[in-house]
């Protein structure tokens, strides 16, 4: 029997639709209408993923998330775009929700399926998973810290040259700049856990040897512009991310402003963190290029995936 997905949604019709979407991928899907029943079901079903509708957020859902976290079950909240602007701050404040999908329609198919597939297969990495098959990805490797400015400016120019709106190019430039800066300065960590480049001024030149080099890839399939930044340290943690996404205040001291993840999150439509602790961190920003700003959600989606050794893997 394939791993189970547990859907918690108050509306029976939507339950059926989501059940069909996720069931079509071959996974066993169970549904329930309330978080209390879902918490009880966690013990017997042992699902890989529990998907909770945002309308159910509250103390019972918080208990469900806590139980899921304790049992190693990933939780995903889905929010309708109309409600997202008001609900996302409380989602971020909770610090417990590692997957949030904001969607403009009652049901979100693709992102939910990708989330489920990544978790169940344990195959997390690569922006290709969010793009149409065959979409080429441009790649560049940062070998000196000072290359960041020219690389992000070239990215913005290339996005514009492909006919995208200036708004999309501006967002791409900001997202890439913040993610590259984090990867160069915050990711490097020594055996004692010290982030030894975090306090190096951002305008100081640093030659990046192989372990410190940062890879940027990007591509566009006329749905999403995907920007992927990867470092080779894997030092970014789930709790750090959850604390950073909702930040509002710039850090007064230190070499970084402490707002990189928050600005990247607010400047894209979907921010995906793929974490392989001690090995690599990959962050993928997705900017929806199909819709004008008025048809986009008032808040963005995010996923935090942590690579775990698979049971039975050699």
């Amino acid at each position, binding site marked *: 029997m394939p791993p189970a997905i547990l859907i918690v949604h108050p509306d029976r019709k939507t339950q059926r639709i989501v059940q069909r979407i996720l069931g079509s991928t071959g996974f066993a899907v169970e549904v329930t209408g309330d978080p209390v029943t879902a918490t009880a079901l966690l013990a017997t079903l042992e699902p890989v993923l529990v998907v909770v509708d945002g309308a159910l957020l509250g103390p019972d859902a918080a208990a469900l998330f806590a139980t899921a976290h304790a049992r190693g079950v990933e939780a995903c909240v889905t929010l309708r775009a109309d409600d997202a602007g008001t609900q996302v701050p409380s989602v971020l404040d909770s610090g417990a929700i590692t997957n949030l999908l904001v969607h403009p329609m009652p049901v979100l198919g693709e992102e939910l399926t990708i989330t489920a597939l990544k978790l169940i297969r344990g195959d997390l990495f690569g922006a290709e998973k969010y793009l149409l098959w065959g979409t080429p990805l441009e790649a560049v490797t940062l070998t000196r810290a000072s290359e960041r*400015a020219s690389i992000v*400016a070239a990215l*913005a120019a290339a996005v514009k040259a492909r006919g995208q*709106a*200036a*708004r999309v190019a*501006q967002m791409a*430039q*900001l997202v890439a*700049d*913040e993610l590259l*800066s984090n990867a160069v300065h915050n990711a490097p960590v020594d055996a004692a856990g010290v982030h030894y480049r975090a306090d190096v*001024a*951002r*305008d100081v030149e640093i030659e990046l040897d192989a372990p410190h080099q940062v890879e940027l890839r990007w591509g566009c399939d006329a749905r999403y512009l995907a920007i992927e930044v990867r470092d080779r340290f894997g030092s970014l943690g789930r709790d750090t991310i959850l604390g950073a996404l909702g930040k*509002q*205040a*710039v*850090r*007064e001291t230190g070499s*970084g*402003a*402490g*707002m*990189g993840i928050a*600005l990247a999150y*607010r*400047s894209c439509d979907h921010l995906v963190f793929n974490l392989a602790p001690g090995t690599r961190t990959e962050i993928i920003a997705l900017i929806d290029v199909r819709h*004008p*700003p*008025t048809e986009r959600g*008032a808040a963005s989606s995010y996923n935090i995936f942590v690579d775990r050794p698979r049971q039975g893997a050699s």
Partner: protein
Amino acid sequence: MTETHGRMTIVAAPGAPAGTFTIGGSIDETADLHQLPGRAAAGRLALDLAGVAFINSLGVRDWIRMQAVAQASGLVVELHRVSEPLVHQLNMIVATRGNATVTSFYAPYACDACGREETVLIDAIAHHDRLMRLDPPLFPCAECGASMAFNDFPERYFSFLAP
């Protein structure tokens, strides 16, 4: 004369009142923007920001420091022709607004008839009442002459104008 501070440029606009500067390029870790209040004149600092194409989180911190110095010095800060990247930061991070007065800013518009998208300059003083009602002005499309409408959520894009 154009001064270069990293990837940012500053020009003291010829013919404009003293303390008026045109800022361009990228505001980032190389900008040193917080030095500007020291160049204000008669208690006034006026910045033309149409040419600011990019600002990152370190640029935002420098910008906030500039606002703090200006505020502590009792300066009147006027922001003219604020570019879209800066408007986004003014909306995302409240501290960037300081005590400054925005007199005009750029905003995204789109023509429903022909699909043209354009960045349009809005006079924040002339249209103050409409903007407070989240009812941005319409502009004619330069391509087909039809009416261009504001192309973002007003409550999101104009939040930096809230008193």
